[in-house]
């Protein structure tokens, strides 16, 4: 489905929601894609290749599940130094993948979801740092997930795929770090759910994280947030095409449910003002049609977004990742005391939030900051006065980017990372053949 109007196309470019930014832009007809590419290519990491690492060591999950063996798909940008102390791990959020920066030779329009943040001379400068991003297991962009074949049955895992938690993802990321010979990351960074992973790294593996960047994150979802996730999941599981999670065998996908889940999520990632600014009450024709089909641009936009999303995203992954969000609560093991939960952390922290983000509000970030200060950890907190809601973490904002840039300058200075010491090595795993990174996408 193409964009319904040029106006809608315009709003699609910045309207990135985790993971869908690029794909969102791509199918819009018109010249905007060219503009986007021209802007990013100035200091882009350029063409990149994803790699697949097969791990034979079983992954025992927090929930008691077991992945006997699994694939991890990842990308790297920049050049490692001799002791790989310039490595930075970037963790992705709900809808995103390992494709953080650059583009693919076979698909040059597929620009990474945080390309404005990561690249030569960008806030996370790949001239200095060796950046690693991995598709988390349970996702649907190439790493083992519910749509993958369970070798024991020869059929897709489906409903039998083990539930993953943030803790499990950190474990899987640590195994990738092992394979890459990275003892400790100069930084672990993420936005939204990615920020949860960065926090978990700092708490669970303090000796392997020198610094952590938590953008638009929280240490636990609020009841309202869990409620949104529950509505999204109910939309999926009540879709007649869901088949208890084993829809692959039926040759269908619960697209209706996925579309609703995506619509709901998308609304919550934007602020009321941002939506009004983008769409207002613009309608598709001068006269109201007085029917229940699309009359307002915002409806057209949501339908377009959700249709696309339902094509490439896996419903079981949506269930799994929203559940991982719900369950994340490091304070729970400490009687609800987040300060106690953070006691083991050693990293230098940067926490950033956006004033208009009502899904992961500044208040949630301030709770994290307080817990870190209680432990006398090095922490800085930036509260960016941005109008875009939760999505702001993916957008260009000079203050936000200057804050991240300044933090990484300090990280580089303190850890003696100057970009001069370059010791490239053969990355483990095998390059993905063109097109296969699309994972579940039909």
């Amino acid at each position, binding site marked *: 489905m193409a964009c319904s109007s040029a106006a809608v196309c315009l709003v699609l470019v910045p309207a990135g929601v985790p993971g869908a930014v690029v794909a969102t832009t791509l199918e819009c007809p018109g010249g905007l894609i060219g503009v986007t590419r021209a802007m990013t290519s100035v200091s882009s990491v350029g063409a990149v290749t994803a790699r697949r690492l097969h791990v034979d060591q079983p992954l025992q999950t927090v929930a008691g599940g077991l992945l006997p063996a699994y694939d991890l798909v990842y990308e790297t940008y920049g050049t490692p130094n001799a002791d790989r102390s310039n490595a930075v791990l970037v963790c992705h959020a709900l809808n995103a993948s390992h494709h953080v920066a650059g583009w693919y030779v076979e698909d040059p329009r597929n620009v990474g979801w945080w390309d404005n943040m990561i690249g030569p001379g960008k806030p996370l400068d790949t001239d200095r740092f060796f950046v690693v991003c991995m598709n988390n297991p349970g996702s649907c962009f190439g790493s083992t997930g519910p749509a993958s074949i369970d070798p024991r049955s020869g059929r897709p895992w489906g409903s039998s795929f083990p539930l993953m938690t943030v803790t499990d993802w950190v474990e899987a990321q640590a195994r990738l770090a092992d394979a890459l010979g990275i003892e400790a990351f100069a930084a672990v960074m993420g936005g939204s759910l990615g920020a949860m992973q960065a926090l978990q790294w700092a708490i669970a593996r303090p000796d392997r994280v020198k610094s952590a960047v938590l953008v638009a994150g929280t240490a636990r979802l609020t009841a309202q947030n869990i409620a949104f996730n529950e509505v999204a999941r109910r939309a999926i599981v009540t879709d007649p095409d869901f088949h208890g999670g084993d829809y692959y065998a039926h040759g269908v996908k619960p697209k209706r449910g996925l579309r609703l889940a995506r619509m709901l999520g998308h609304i919550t990632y934007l602020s009321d003002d941002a939506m009004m600014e983008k769409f207002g009450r613009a309608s598709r024709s001068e006269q109201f049609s007085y029917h229940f089909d699309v009359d307002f641009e915002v409806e057209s936009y949501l339908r377009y977004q959700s249709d696309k999303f339902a094509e490439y995203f896996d419903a079981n992954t949506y269930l799994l990742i929203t559940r991982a969000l719900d369950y994340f609560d490091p304070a729970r093991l400490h009687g609800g005391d987040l300060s106690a939960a953070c006691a083991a952390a050693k990293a230098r922290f940067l926490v950033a939030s956006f004033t208009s983000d009502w899904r992961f509000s500044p208040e949630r970030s301030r709770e994290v900051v307080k817990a870190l200060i209680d432990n006398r950890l090095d922490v800085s*907190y*930036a509260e960016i006065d941005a109008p875009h809601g939760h999505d702001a973490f993916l957008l260009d904002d000079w203050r936000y980017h200057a804050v991240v840039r300044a*933090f990484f300058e300090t990280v580089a200075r303190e850890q003696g990372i100057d970009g001069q010491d370059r010791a490239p090595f053969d990355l483990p795993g095998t390059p993905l053949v063109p097109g296969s990174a699309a994972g579940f996408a039909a």
Partner: protein
Amino acid sequence: MNGGGLGPRIGRADFDAIADWVKPGATVLDLGCGDGTLLRHLRETRAVRGYGIEIEDDKVIACLKNGVNVIQGDLDRGLAGFDSGSFDAVILSLTLQAVRQTEDLVLEMLRVGREGIVTFPNFGYWRHRLQVLAGRMPVSGELPYSWYDTPNVHLCTIQDFDDFCARHSIRVLERLVFCEGRRVDWLSNLRGSLAVYRFERTAT
């Protein structure tokens, strides 16, 4: 809106005084920390564990470049995020005159910190008095703003601040007054342009 470490840091007289007062390794909160110069000075000279609070974006960025911990926030919303008695010292350097809720903030300083340290430009300085006598709002090194663009809303004299402390059961532990970087020991409310106080809450 306030909280941006305002005005130039005249010399380093107040910095040195503060550094002398802060114990090595102490935990320090610097309200309106500007670009983090004072905290960096305290870290380098006294090995303090410090955090600054600053509202302005460019100063938050400057702190980050300085490698100083900074929390972006508005001092007029108080220090609600900080536990009582959680810091050895809470500093308000050349920011007192620019906050709106001055009374609340000074009391908050003494809730969160065991000691408070305040520096402010002395409105009673003779040059300021002369300018007022001449019919104009004073403009000086410590008060570099014109009346129409000043962020300063609560200017006071040394005498005023002494009275304030007495009225709020605040015990002044030490007071230093400077003019152009030199100590002023007599007629300080007239001859001093910069006052530096160390105080604590009177035991109740």
